[in-house]
């Protein structure tokens, strides 16, 4: 594997990471063009999931993924950039006089029996990692890629619903950050799925039981339900979920069955 495998230069990515940009945003505009409470509530949820990268890294690093230095170099910077995306969203909320992200705790978590696999702890993951080996990296890359699609859908819904020019500028900055994440995950998933039958089997299996967006698993029930209602409920929501399912089915060596399962997960 070369330093710039699949054309994605991880070193260049780490060197050009987006740091704090909330101080570059024109937040004063919200004084005359404030966001509605529902939009602010959705923003708070999105900020919390963007800032929850360490929760995801815990699960990922328990596995063989931690040995791949190129992937971990990406993930360190990925977490860093997501932290500042969360910060920017938090700044939007504070511009409306709302408390900071850290001042508001997550509510009672949503407990779904179907998510028990996603809640498995480090002990199980560490032991399972011996059996899974390197194949698990493909599954993590695929999960990350789908997360980009899910969050893109959420940001699109927010932008359309809010129809708010200052917010659109913030979301455009966030989209630019996430675009490179999508590029990395797509390239890695494609290559690894092409190269390994075991990676294909494990990825299909893990995608059937994953939870999106990444970081949602430990968020409050009300917030998760609000997110699902806004993004994947109703006719348009169903179309979004199915569109993502179609993209999943089109991923290297993935199937329509896997795509359909992902669509159903999103619409729970």
């Amino acid at each position, binding site marked *: *594997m070369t*330093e710039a495998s699949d054309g994605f230069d*991880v*070193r260049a990515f*780490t*060197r050009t*990471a987006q*740091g*704090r940009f909330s101080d570059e945003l024109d937040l004063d505009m919200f004084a005359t063009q404030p966001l509605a409470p529902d939009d602010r509530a959705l923003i708070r949820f999105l900020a919390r999931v963007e*800032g929850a*990268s*360490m*929760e995801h*890294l*815990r699960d990922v*690093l*328990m596995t*063989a993924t*931690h*040995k*791949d*230095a*190129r992937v*971990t*170099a990406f*993930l*360190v*910077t990925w*977490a*860093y950039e997501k*932290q500042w995306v969360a910060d920017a969203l938090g700044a939007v909320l504070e511009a409306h006089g709302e408390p900071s992200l*850290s001042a508001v705790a997550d509510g009672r978590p949503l407990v779904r029996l179907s998510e028990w696999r996603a809640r498995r*702890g*480090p*002990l199980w993951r*560490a*032991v399972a*990692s*011996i059996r899974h080996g390197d194949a698990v990296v493909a599954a993590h890359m695929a999960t990350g890629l789908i997360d980009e699609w899910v969050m893109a859908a959420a940001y699109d819904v927010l932008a359309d619903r809010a129809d708010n020019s200052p917010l659109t500028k913030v979301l455009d900055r966030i989209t630019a950050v996430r675009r490179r994440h999508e590029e990395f995950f797509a390239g890695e998933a494609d290559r690894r799925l092409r190269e390994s039958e075991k990676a294909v089997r494990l990825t299909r299996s893990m995608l059937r039981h994953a939870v999106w967006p990444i970081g949602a698993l430990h968020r409050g029930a009300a917030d998760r339900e609000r997110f699902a209602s806004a993004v994947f409920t109703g006719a348009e929501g169903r179309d979004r979920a199915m569109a993502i399912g179609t993209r999943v089915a089109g991923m290297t060596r993935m199937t329509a069955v896997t795509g359909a399962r992902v669509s159903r997960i999103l619409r729970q």
Partner: protein
Amino acid sequence: MAFDIDEYAAGSREVRWDDLDLDHFREHPLPADTLRTLRYMTDVEYHTICYTRDLLTTPSRADDDVARFMVTWNREEFWHGEALAAVLRVHGIEVGFDQLRANRLKFGWRDALDPAGQSILGRLVGPDFIAVHMSWGAANEYTAVSAYRRMAALATDSVLAQLLRRIAQQETKHVAFYASQARKRLAASRKAQLITRFLLNHAWAPVGSTIMDRSEVRFVFGQLMSGPEGTAEARRLDGNVSALPGLSGLRIFSKAFGRLLTEAAPA
């Protein structure tokens, strides 16, 4: 003084070396012993993400401040690795992703179970385990600051010395975080003090000991911590750690470095 995580994160910058003339090493290459020590430090810096893995398995991950610190800390340590690797590269020593992966693969399946062990220990001890991690982290970061400063002081090459001082400066912020967290948590819990004291006294070893060959650990700390100045520095570090609540009298640095220097001494 309380550690301001927001200020730390917002003020974090990648350590710079683009303004240093690394090409200078083509005419004035560093000695082999220096490169050997730099290689050790590079590997340790790049290994931070793996150490983070162990932290994440325990109650430490659930603490917001600790989780937020880990994001920026990891990025800064990664950049330390990149900076040192840039110096090594000019000397024809490549520390690329493939090399790092090969190093990590050498640890085998036992490495996969290390976090499981941490997780079990974390569950048995409970939230007080965060105090152990913070104290352990403080000890490691004190070692890092000291090592970089000692190496900068011993370096005859001004370009190297400047880079090492920059890295050391960033490491002081890591010390500040870990030490402030350790102080707060140890002060709040006698149980945390007892467990931390026991584990530091019986299990702590200089940073890099778990991932580098013993011969390299001996070599590096023999280079940096020998002689009267090294002994004095070890005592000073002991003073830092033993000043934490419940850790009075601990001499983890003097013991660990003394052991290494004894192993390294000619028979």
